[in-house]
């Protein structure tokens, strides 16, 4: 490990948290996670209700964990064993809520100044001016949050949090409701700001697109537990949990039986459901006869009107179109191959292939587009 890495890790956020929450229907929810976030953006990904916001509330000091420890660099913010519990005011953690929580009666500039009460006037002016510019809101300084656009409010909220020079930044779905271009521009400004400071940023989202756009590292949370972590490609393209697969946008989730293992080739054959369809998928820890679940994206399936020849893809299934319906810019086809598949195709392809209900088609699946769900 070189010097830079060691410096980075010395300011990392390391936390293990346990928090039980009783719901109204006496069903209790337990958050029980351990995580480490080095400098840069770490994405917390999971469905709504997975516990992401509770986790951020615990880190920010707004909710007291039942047990655990939270450390930033060498500062202990919370330690149930040592009875340490810093107030949110003392944590040097910035937290941008989903609702942004801008103060409606204060101007953009007053909002941004709010966290700098303890700093001498002159210093404060300079820091406010700097951050107003870094997040491109200097022209709005005298406007109230109710008078500016959604994107401008999000920029203001980021500026207000970051002007305090925090040691960690928590972002709870701060860019929801913005179009992709605007989102990318704001994220760019955030990255630029963090390039010099290199603090850990925990970015909560349930949007797969944001994970792809931001992704350096991702931690996947489901039902209060960390189920997976790593770089987005590894974590999200080989889903380990069924619910995760659904969140991550795998439209086809099929139950299958393992027929035989071909270890030299790194593959195994499985039979889908009760049908006669057999496909080849990547080898997993399974035995012949085991029941497994396989997740396939609708967009990863090719569709042909004649039996394809000379393809590298190993899985070709014959079926019949059941229905075709428009979904935004693409068409969703349901194809019955003994088990039902959902396939996404472009409207142009539908016209060119003269696809219609009851038409006979062949589906082509690449082995590595079939992800096993453990």
């Amino acid at each position: 490990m070189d010097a830079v890495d060691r410096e980075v890790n010395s300011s990392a956020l390391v936390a293990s948290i346990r928090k039980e929450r009783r719901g109204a229907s006496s069903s209790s929810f337990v958050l029980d996670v351990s995580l480490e976030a080095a400098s840069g953006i770490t994405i917390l990904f999971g469905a709504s209700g997975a516990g992401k916001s509770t986790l951020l509330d615990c880190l920010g000091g707004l909710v007291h964990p039942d047990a655990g420890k939270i450390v930033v660099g060498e500062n202990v913010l919370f330690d149930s064993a040592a009875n340490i519990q810093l107030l949110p005011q003392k944590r040097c953690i910035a937290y941008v809520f989903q609702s942004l929580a801008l103060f409606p009666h204060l101007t953009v500039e007053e909002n941004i100044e709010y966290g700098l009460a303890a700093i001498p006037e002159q210093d404060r002016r300079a820091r406010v001016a700097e951050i107003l510019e870094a997040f491109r809101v200097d022209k709005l300084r005298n406007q109230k949050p109710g008078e500016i656009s959604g994107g401008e409010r999000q920029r203001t909220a980021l500026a207000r949090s970051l002007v305090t020079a925090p040691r960690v930044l928590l972002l709870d779905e701060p860019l929801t409701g913005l179009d992709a271009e605007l989102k990318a521009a704001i994220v760019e400004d955030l990255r630029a700001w963090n390039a010099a400071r290199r603090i850990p940023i925990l970015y909560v989202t349930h949007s797969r697109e944001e994970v792809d756009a931001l992704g350096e590292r991702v931690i996947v949370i489901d039902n209060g537990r960390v189920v997976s972590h790593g770089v987005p490609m590894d974590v999200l393209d080989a889903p380990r949990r069924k619910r995760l697969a659904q969140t991550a946008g795998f439209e086809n989730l099929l139950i299958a039986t393992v027929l035989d293992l071909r270890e030299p080739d790194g593959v195994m054959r499985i039979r889908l459901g009760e049908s006669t369809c057999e496909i080849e998928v990547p080898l997993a820890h399974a035995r012949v006869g085991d029941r497994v679940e396989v997740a396939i994206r609708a967009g990863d399936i090719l569709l042909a009107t004649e039996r394809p020849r000379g393809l590298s893809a190993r899985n070709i299934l014959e079926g019949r179109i059941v229905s075709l319906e428009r979904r935004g810019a693409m068409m969703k086809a349901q194809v019955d191959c003994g088990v039902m598949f959902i396939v996404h195709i472009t409207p142009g392809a539908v016209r060119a292939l003269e696809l219609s209900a009851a038409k006979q088609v062949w589906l082509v699946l690449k082995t590595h587009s079939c992800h096993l769900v453990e």
Partner: protein
Amino acid sequence: MNSLWLSFELAGCVAAILLVIGMPVAYWLAYSSWRGKFLLESIVALPLVLPPTVLGFYALVAMGPRGPLGKLWATFFGHGLAFTFSGLVLASVVYSFPFAVQPLMVSFEAVDRKLLDASAVLGAGRWRTFRRIILPLSLPGVVTALVLSFAHTLGEFGVVLMVGGNLAGVTRTVSIDIYDRVQSLEYGEANHLALILLAIAFAVLCLVYAVNRRVWTPWTAK
């Protein structure tokens, strides 16, 4: 007209005192998570349902020369509390308490909790959060509390009669004056004063409803 000014003076004192002591009570009621909170809430609301004569009776007993309040007051000021302006203020504060505390409490509760969380995360303590966030956003509630406790004190009769009696220039408030004049068949004079009270009551309610419609709070444009 003497009695009118006396009433204004009394109502002004009471509204000012209630604003000061009402705020911490309302703050506690709005944000405490103590289970027994309903007890205090009930005590605060008690003057709403209690007949004024009952309240006035106990106030008189407490303030009398043998009552605990009366004795305490006498040791500091050398005279009793009953049938004095100070005694009237004290009893009126109790009587109008819910009219100050409830609007404050409701408006404190209505402030978005996320704003308070944001304030805490930005390093502000409770006092700064209250001064910079809660209070400005509760302005309609503060105006309502002031105006209602003022108006309610202006119109009180039973408590004043029990505690203050009817001493011209000291405890004869406008509502007692009106009663007096009706008793002595001076209907013209009584009508004069009554009309003024009616006009004030109407103006006050207009003000309360207007601030609570947020006619003057531009930041709710969102």
